[in-house]
């Protein structure tokens, strides 16, 4: 009963917020242009190459005896002495490919028994991460050339997602989808709450016989709807203009976006509650947004960062959201392959919302 009323009140507020939003032509124009510009800009841009090392790679030795029996051990040894690759051994190609989809390794190196025939050494790369893929190919190539010579090369390279055209953009598109939704949830929510407080209409919501949580939930719902609409614009654009093929169950993708957004909505609420005005809240959130944009694997693969920044990336929740989206949308992964990131997002959401709602209620009646 109370729950139903609270939900209804929330939806009324969400509806009001969206109605207000829809009345401003300037805001709608900006709202549509933001993702369009973002995509147009980055769609043609290539991130600069960095020094990538210790790329995790799966090794499958199908030729434990015979002429190629030394390859696997030597490959492992040279990888660790050069520091370019982190070799993880798998017993079957299928298992190794699953590890790629789960994001544990960036490629699979297979030694077949017909070595040294042509194509008896196979490297399968994660082409949705083009930069890492290129680096991986180069590292494996250089190790092999010192092992078996390079002419003629027995190495055959293939892709984990042959359906996906290999471009930087393939890699970035899911990141932008996640980033857009998160920005709307975090900064957008903080801005509308602060605005209502400053113009005084928040008092009108607060004297009404509705729960404090309905106010904040309603506003969050409105922001999420906006974020999802912008995400949809991005998806349409990358599919229509950049030839990206998007896979994955749309409902699952939306669920990941909403779950991932919740924690950031919480951060937005916390910032607005703690800050004295809209400007301060916006500045506080900018402080979070910038590192997030560059460190969470939206633009550059996390593995390309210096080791200490990789640790920072691992505590940024957006990293997990983007990771899950990339696996879903490009690698066509199932629910099982994104369980880890989902769990992290869930924990983050519960903690952030758990802190945010009481802080908000207290801040508005202080």
């Amino acid at each position, binding site marked *: 009963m109370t729950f139903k009323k609270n939900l209804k*009140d929330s939806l*009324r507020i969400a509806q*009001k917020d969206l*109605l*207000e*939003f829809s*009345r*401003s032509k300037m805001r709608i124009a900006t709202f549509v242009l933001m993702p369009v510009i973002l995509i147009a800009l980055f769609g043609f841009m290539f991130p600069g190459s960095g020094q990538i090392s210790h790329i995790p790679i799966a090794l499958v030795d199908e030729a434990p005896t015979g002429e190629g029996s030394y390859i696997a051990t030597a490959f492992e040894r040279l990888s660790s002495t050069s520091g370019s690759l982190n070799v993880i051994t798998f017993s079957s190609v299928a298992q190794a490919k699953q590890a790629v989809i789960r994001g544990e390794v960036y490629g699979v190196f297979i030694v077949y028994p017909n070595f040294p025939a042509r194509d008896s050494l196979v490297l399968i790369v994660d082409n949705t991460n083009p930069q890492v893929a290129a680096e991986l190919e180069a590292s494996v190539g250089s190790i092999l050339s010192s092992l078996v010579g390079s002419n003629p090369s027995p190495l055959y390279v293939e892709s984990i997602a042959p359906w996906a055209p290999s471009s930087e953009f393939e890699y970035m598109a899911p990141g932008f989808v996640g980033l857009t939704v998160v920005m709307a949830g975090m900064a957008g929510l903080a801005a509308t709450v602060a605005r209502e*407080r400053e*113009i*005084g*209409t928040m*008092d*009108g*919501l*607060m*004297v*009404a*016989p*509705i729960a404090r949580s309905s106010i904040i939930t309603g506003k969050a719902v409105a922001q999420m709807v906006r974020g999802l609409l912008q995400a949809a614009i991005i998806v349409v654009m990358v599919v229509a203009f950049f030839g990206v093929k998007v896979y994955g169950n749309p409902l699952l993708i939306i669920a990941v976006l909403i779950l991932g957004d919740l924690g950031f909505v919480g951060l937005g609420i916390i910032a607005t509650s703690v800050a*004295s*005005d809209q400007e301060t809240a916006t500045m506080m959130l900018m402080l979070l947004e910038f590192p997030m944009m560059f460190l969470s694997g939206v633009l550059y693969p996390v593995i390309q960062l210096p080791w200490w920044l990789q640790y920072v990336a691992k505590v940024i929740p957006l990293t997990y959201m983007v990771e899950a989206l990339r696996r879903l949308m490009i690698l066509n992964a199932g629910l099982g392959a994104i369980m880890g990131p989902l769990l992290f997002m869930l924990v983050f959401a519960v903690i952030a919302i758990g802190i945010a709602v009481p802080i908000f209620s207290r801040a508005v*009646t*202080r």
Partner: protein
Amino acid sequence: MIRVEDGSIVVKDLTKIFQGGFAAVDHVSFEIKDGELFGLLGPNGAGKSTTMRMLTTLLRPTEGDAFIGGHSIKDEPDKVRLLIGLVSDKLIVYDRLTARENLRFFGHLYGLGGEKLEERIDELLDEVDLSRFADRAVGTFSTGMKQRLNLVRALLHNPKVLFLDEPTLGLDPQTVRFIKDLIVQLHQSDITMVLTTHEMALAEELSERLAIIDHGKILAIGEPKRLEEENGVKNLEDLFLKLTGRQLRDTLGKEKSAPRVIRG
């Protein structure tokens, strides 16, 4: 005939101490009878708005409590919220929505809806002469029009108690007169009203009883004529100056400690 006294207000030791230990309202107690029009006067920074905000459940008292229609503002804020309406100089209307959409939205928050709500909206808009502008965005309204809309917004759910915090601030004489007439009319319909204003003439004319507060404390309370006689002054303004002194109130309180909820 049994009359339910649900528009009464009982204030007991109501206190608000802001961060830094500043007591904006300091153990204030008074009672307002059902249907009464009560004035709250005091210089800037006296604690009028803080008192109003506590009574309207917007601000939690540090100490003490108040009861509206017998319900504690601390323990039963939801019951209190159903009984009260709030009008202040900060207009609670959304510029991007039309007048009707504004009223419909707030009506929904009070659990109203359907045909009945639409009829109520028509009736209220008519009352404040805004029917012609019902479907215009409120952003295009003059301040006076907005305040008229804001007033009926507070009346949508037929509140038993209406809180008016400086409702005439920054308005033209026509609108001030309009609002004054509306207050008189509402008073005849037995709604309890608490009014703060700077305009002594308005307070003197309208209030059945009033309190003069300063530094968060009540200095005098009673019927305006009685208070004037008791203090040997001829009008409310003289009484006010006699009680609160003539020095200017240029406190820096707001800048120093009150960035959060800035109210007149």
